């Protein structure tokens, strides 16, 4: 504080005084903080540490073996494939839906909003069952599909479908409030200046929501890789074929193969941590960039 100017000092003092005037006594502050910390460490931090310690309990060799097992490898591959397909699909859908909802007026808008929220409201198991009922052997299109030799249920297409369904709302839910807050004026300005619909989307709308979009994609990806319920129903648990990472963890665990189960689980947890780090980076970045127009009215 060596080169703090007197006015800054006064400001600082005023701030401290104001804090005293509006804050609780010390013992309340610290007991609330420690309560929160205790809760967080008990329910979040300890389990996370447990996953990694359990995974490495029998040494690095067992860990590497568990992960390089062909079944584990195929589960990892399938998880990545499901994420790689469902994230771009929901990216495109999310942009289209939020663009329509936030920037235009049309009949049935509320129905569309409700539909987008449906996957949040429906239990993932039910979601999986829906696909079994539609595409399964006894389902509506079952006989037609088997006649044409197309397998959806107990195969990769079913897993991708279930993943797309459960991750449906993330991008749209992230973008709609952001786009609504930004209003339509910039788009209208672009229109009057002669820009086409595509030019407005690429040059005005998307750059304005890029950080929210990235945030939505990260959340979608996290959910796509971690989804268990819906995928479990449609997968059929065929080892080396239709097992994703979460399903593989469950199978290993049920076989009392704890070390291998925790090894795969630790990889999932690691992917989650990477996602969280990315998410924090995006949040920090979007706070830094002056995207928010100051309120001028």
């Amino acid at each position, binding site marked *: 504080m060596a080169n703090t100017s007197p006015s800054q000092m006064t400001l600082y003092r005023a701030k401290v005084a104001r804090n005293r005037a509006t804050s609780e006594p010390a013992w309340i502050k610290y007991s609330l903080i420690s309560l929160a910390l205790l809760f967080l460490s008990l329910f979040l931090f300890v389990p996370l540490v447990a996953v990694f310690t359990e995974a490495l309990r029998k040494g690095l060799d067992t860990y590497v073996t568990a992960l390089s097992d062909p079944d584990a490898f195929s589960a990892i591959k399938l998880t990545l494939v499901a994420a790689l397909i469902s994230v771009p699909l929901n990216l495109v859908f999310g942009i289209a839906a939020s663009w329509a909802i936030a920037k235009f007026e049309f009949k049935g808008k509320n129905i569309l909003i409700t539909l987008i929220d449906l996957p949040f409201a429906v239990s993932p198991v039910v979601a999986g069952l829906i696909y079994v009922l539609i595409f399964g052997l006894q389902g509506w299109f079952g006989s037609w599909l088997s006649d044409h030799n197309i397998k959806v249920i107990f195969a990769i297409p079913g897993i991708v479908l279930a993943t797309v369904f459960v991750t449906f709302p993330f991008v749209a839910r992230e973008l709609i409030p952001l786009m609504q807050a930004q209003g339509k004026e910039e788009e209208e*300005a672009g229109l*009057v*200046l*002669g820009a086409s619909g595509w030019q407005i989307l690429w040059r005005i709308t998307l*750059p*304005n929501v890029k950080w929210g979009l990235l945030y939505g994609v990260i959340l979608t990806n996290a959910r796509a890789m971690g989804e268990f319920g819906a995928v479990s129903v449609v997968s059929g648990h065929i080892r080396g074929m239709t097992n994703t990472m979460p399903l593989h963890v469950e199978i290993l665990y049920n076989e009392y193969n704890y070390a291998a189960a925790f090894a795969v689980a630790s990889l999932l947890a690691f992917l989650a941590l990477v996602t969280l780090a990315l998410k924090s980076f995006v949040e920090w970045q979007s706070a830094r960039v002056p995207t928010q*127009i100051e309120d*001028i*009215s």
Partner: protein
Amino acid sequence: MSIEIRNIQKSFGNFQALSNINLDVPTGELVALLGPSGCGKTSLLRIIAGLESPDVGTILFHGDDATHRDVRERQVGFVFQHYALFRHMTVFENVAFGLRVRPKSTRPTEGEIHRRVRELLDLVQLDWLSDRYPPQLSGGQRQRIALARALAVEPKVLLLDEPFGALDAKVRKDLRRWLRRLHDELHITSVFVTHDQEEALEVADRIVVMNHGKIEQIGTPQEVYDHPSTPFVYQFLGNVNLFHSRVESGKAFIGNLPLEVDAKDESNNSTAFAYVRPHDIDIQKESNIQSAFEAKVIYIHSLGPLVRLELQREDQSDIIESELTRERFLQLDLSIGSKVYVQPKNIRVFLNETA
């Protein structure tokens, strides 16, 4: 390019935003749409721009029907109330936007774009801001950049929605003089929307006063101020005193003062409203033939060259306002509680049409 508006109607749900609007804007004129909020002035501006479409009626640009013409082909420049600058682009890119989005065949070269943008930034005297982003600018700067951006596409018509609404008083005054000068240089047909009568009176060639989705009066600032054609215009443009009266045998009365009314027979005994501007309320210490009523001074506000008085009528509970020159005020030697006789001049009487 001239604009002709014929029988425009527009409603939003049950709300009639515009009814039966007819308006001609000759080439090169600067026209103000003036009215209180909710009077439909912004809707009308947006219909001219093509951002809304009218339910009924036609719009002609330069004599050609443009009612269903696409916004992009109308060759209008629009300045939004909150400027709507593209927040993720620099000032330079904002101004260049309209040129960059043109199809390849008509798009200027990169050098030409640079030259045009520099020219426009010079015109709005903000060339030194070209690398900044909109959130880093002050309100007045944003306003001028928005104008430069609108002018970049060489519009034939310039439309401005509350151009000075979000600025503080000092900047607002400077900017409207600047806009007037700019218009005198460029001579683009311009329409701007405002709720500020002072702004409209100072800047516009002609004023269109609107209320409840209808046009109340169209005229030069002088005309609408000196000869308001409806009670609404009288009240909306400047301060005014309102006197309620009854018509008796062809005359209305303010206090004891009889006023000629071009009354028809049936208007006898109907109510009349008489309007007098505060500067047309003269004050005498003695009663005479032109005195309307006796009043008491209850408030004196003497700032600047004019002295504003509030007077309490002795015969009624109404309070009226008067403006005197400082000289006249001193000559009368008034103080709070003084008894005075009020002499209204330039009285305008409107008969109550609903009675």
